[in-house]
């Protein structure tokens, strides 16, 4: 088990997201920025900055005794708990709220400012429903769609420039826990009932395909798509398992199960610079980096774990910085900590 560096922030950090480099190229940015969202007593968004490990010298190990991991730049109150944050562009982010709202924030002069928000999720009795996750359509367009899923069983599509043109479709009778865009025209969602549902953006009300692992009764907490192979998806389950899906054959999808955690997997991602690895965080207070592409059989797949001694509670969110040569991961936990792992090594391998 490798140790994460810990910085107490006295906030329950429930979402975190790296921002693109300001100058456009990571190697010219000596500082990197990320945004955290918190919940419970302190519902706010906080903009942080940290040193770019590509510019560090010497041992390149930050000592938490004499230096903070990150410095607070600015913060702004958020309407509701922050359940997810997604980067829209270099200075625009979108957030998902416990009040069912999707909000757009501008980052101006190192401060966060609310531009607009819309209520995307409600129950039939009018009560707001939690927006559990959101994902931005991977297109180079200012009018990209934001897909948001919620506890009302709906997926909402919100054009970035016209939030009032929101369209919501009920897709499941249970909670939709995660959403992602395998392609610009395809949306994949994970459900509490243990299903993956695929939708075509052009026919959002109709389910294109449904996948379920019949060998086990899972409840999915999150979903992620491979950065280049749209047929590969990863889901995190309530049992602590990470499932890797190959959905090329819709009638018989191939599933590989990695039992990497001991409790609910809150977030899963393919590593942005090495997609042969899946990164996941869990309620068991650890982050796992699983090497899923290997010559070895499944039972002996390499898994590296990260945790912090002074972080005993759930790690609910993380993000791997895709803009640096060195490995840089930031996470947030219910212990009120920001956790970080950085390595100045230029070797992409994490093992």
């Amino acid at each position: 088990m490798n140790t994460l560096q810990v910085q107490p922030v006295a906030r329950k950090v429930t979402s975190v997201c790296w921002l693109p480099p300001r100058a456009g190229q990571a190697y010219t940015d000596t500082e990197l920025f990320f945004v955290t969202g918190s919940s419970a007593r302190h519902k706010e968004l906080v903009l942080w900055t940290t040193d770019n490990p590509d510019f560090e010298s010497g041992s390149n190990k930050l000592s938490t005794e004499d230096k903070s991991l990150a410095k607070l730049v600015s913060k702004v109150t958020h309407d509701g708990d922050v359940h997810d944050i997604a980067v829209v562009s270099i200075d625009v982010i979108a957030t998902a709220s416990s009040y069912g709202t999707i909000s757009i924030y501008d980052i101006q002069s190192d401060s966060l400012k609310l531009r607009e928000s819309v209520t995307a999720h409600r129950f039939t009795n009018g009560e707001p429903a939690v927006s559990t996750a959101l994902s931005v359509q991977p297109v180079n367009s200012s009018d990209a769609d934001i897909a948001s899923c919620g506890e009302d069983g709906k997926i909402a599509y919100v054009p970035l420039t016209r939030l009032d043109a929101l369209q919501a479709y009920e897709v499941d009778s249970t909670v939709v826990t995660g959403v992602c865009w395998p392609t610009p025209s395809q949306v994949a969602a994970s459900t509490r009932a243990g299903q993956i549902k695929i939708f075509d953006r052009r026919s959002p009300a109709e389910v294109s395909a449904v996948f379920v692992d019949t060998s086990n009764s899972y409840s999915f907490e999150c979903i992620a798509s491979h950065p280049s192979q749209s047929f590969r998806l990863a889901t995190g389950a309530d049992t602590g398992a990470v499932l890797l899906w190959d959905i090329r054959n819709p009638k018989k999808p191939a599933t590989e199960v990695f039992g990497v955690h001991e409790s609910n997997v809150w977030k899963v991602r393919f590593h942005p610079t090495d997609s042969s690895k899946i990164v996941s965080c869990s309620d068991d207070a650890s982050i796992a980096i699983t090497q899923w592409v290997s010559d070895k059989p499944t039972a002996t797949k390499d898994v590296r774990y990260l945790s912090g001694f002074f972080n005993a509670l759930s790690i609910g969110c993380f993000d791997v910085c895709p803009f640096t040569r060195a490995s840089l991961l930031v996470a947030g936990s219910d212990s009120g900590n920001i956790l970080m792992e950085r390595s100045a090594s230029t070797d992409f391998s994490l093992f």
Partner: protein
Amino acid sequence: MPRKRAAKFVICRDTEAVTHLEPGLFPAGRQSEWSEQNRTLTFSIHPLWNQIAIAVAGKQPTEALPKRVPVYEQDQTVHICGVPGVPDSRLPFVNDTHAVFASLQEVMSKEPVVGMDGLLQMSSMYREAMLRQIRVLQEASETTEFIAGEVETFHAMHAVWHLLEIIYLTSNLPGLSTSIVPHFMEWLNFNFPAPLAEDGERILDSGGGLALNGELWAYVRKLALRGHVSVLANTLERVAPVKGLSAHAARWARDIAGIARDMPLGSSEETAGSFNARWRRWNEELQNAAAAIASLQPSEDEALEALYAVVDVMRGNADAVAEEGKSWQDVLGAMLLYSEPTALADRLPSLAGAVVEQYHITELSELDRGLIALLNHELPEFLVLCNRIDPWLAAHMADLMDHISILDMCRGAFAVDPREHYLVALSELYIGHENLWRVALDYLGLSGTRAARCVMAEYAMRVPLESDAKAQQVLRVCEKYGLKSAIDRIHRQLGRRQWQRGRLGAAIAHFAVVSDRRSIGLICDQLWDQYLASGALEYGPVIDGVMAAGLRHERLRFLTRYRDFYESYRARMLAEAGAILLSILVEEIAPPYAVADLLVDAIPLLEGDELVFSADQTFELMRCAEALRQSPFPTGRSVDEGEMSIFSVACGRNLARSFVTI
């Protein structure tokens, strides 16, 4: 003669809190008049947080009043009153020490049992967390009264914790010197530092006027009292050549510096006899120096007086120590260092008693009394005083004492188990903070007692479940600690909530976990009623989700089979539809109230151009209809006799066709 029962410590937790609402809910001094206008106060206590909501309420409904009563702004104001809980500034400390606490319970539950060095390591982590918190508080941009109070509290907590550590852990480590003295002096100088290093730097930077510096000799005396012999020697050597000092004072300053440097220090490699011999020789040097300096007195030389005092203290003169010491800690430290340098921990009570009896009780703070109780091994009183310093301290101290196996010595003095009591009290404090519900539940769960588990279950059932993810976390905690009743209640609560929100699939999923077949049946009945009312079968996605999870229930099976019939019928696959419909009736999958509807559904199949039902199958349908008519139990739905008549006629015609076809 009856034995007098020893009084037990009853930890009293009843504290009266009085608060005045601003603005008030009724005019001051006019409460009677206010009450006569149909007004009273109502309140509600939050199930978890230490909050109470107070508002004005009417004694009777407005409609029942003979005349209209005017409504004021105060009537529509709700006051939320709360007891101050955990401040946000403590959150990092709470989370850090929670991690240490959890690790400590884990290592102590495993084999082989952790020894003193492991416990010492854990204890050090607690102290590091306290020191870290002090640093963070001191670095705050604004020093308020609150922050100053917090710093003082954490200093007190650290002093208490450190003293217990050296008495029960450090001094019991194998392989080190067993004398308590060096550890006690380390404790004293770390927690009650004197003299301050910055004072020393300031004084010694006086340059040529050093000998005339009014603070110099008080500083030197303090160095001697606290056993800073190296600094003392260096200081005296710097002072000796300066101008303004008499020749005698200069000489004795140099000599005493040399004596101070020669002070024997014990080590684990040296025998007690050898050390004692060295100590006696050193003490003789001090006696000779004292006699020589005394022979030069009386004089008005402040320096010589101070040097005599230094020597007097260092040779262990109790009166000199008592005169120089500003606090009982000073006196006790000096007595240990210079009179009993090889004292063991068991000498502390008698020495401390002798020192403290010189002080009046009113001169002692709560911290002082706690430290003295610890030195005297009065552990019950020590714990009670720890609680007065801070509830965190009492809870973790009781836990550590339990692991060190010293809590058992004083358990009998309490009416309840002190470890359990203080941990539960701490959890009650934490549960009042929205960020700390899980920490609170962990403390209750890790306390390991049945009573704490009961409290934990009650709290777990009342944690606000603002989101599905949080509900999953609460359920996970309940599973970890085996709180089956709480899991059951939470799932039912979530199921009812989803039901009210119209999320029927999610509701069924929750009820299925607790095998609440009745609620699942009622939801299925609701789905059926919705279908009958709208005519459109829309419950497919609802049951698909729960069936995919492997749930089996007779009502769900009925709805699933009926949906198969419906889709076959819509696709004009009439034979298949008829077969499915018949199987539902024959296998008695359908609930009693739906049988009539199914028989009515059979009418178009009976009357259609295609012969769907054979003679035998038609007889089966007729048998079901007859059973429905003769059913002794009320079905709860009225049977439309007109439709049943049409059904009977259709059966007759179908029989005729089937005979002809044969």
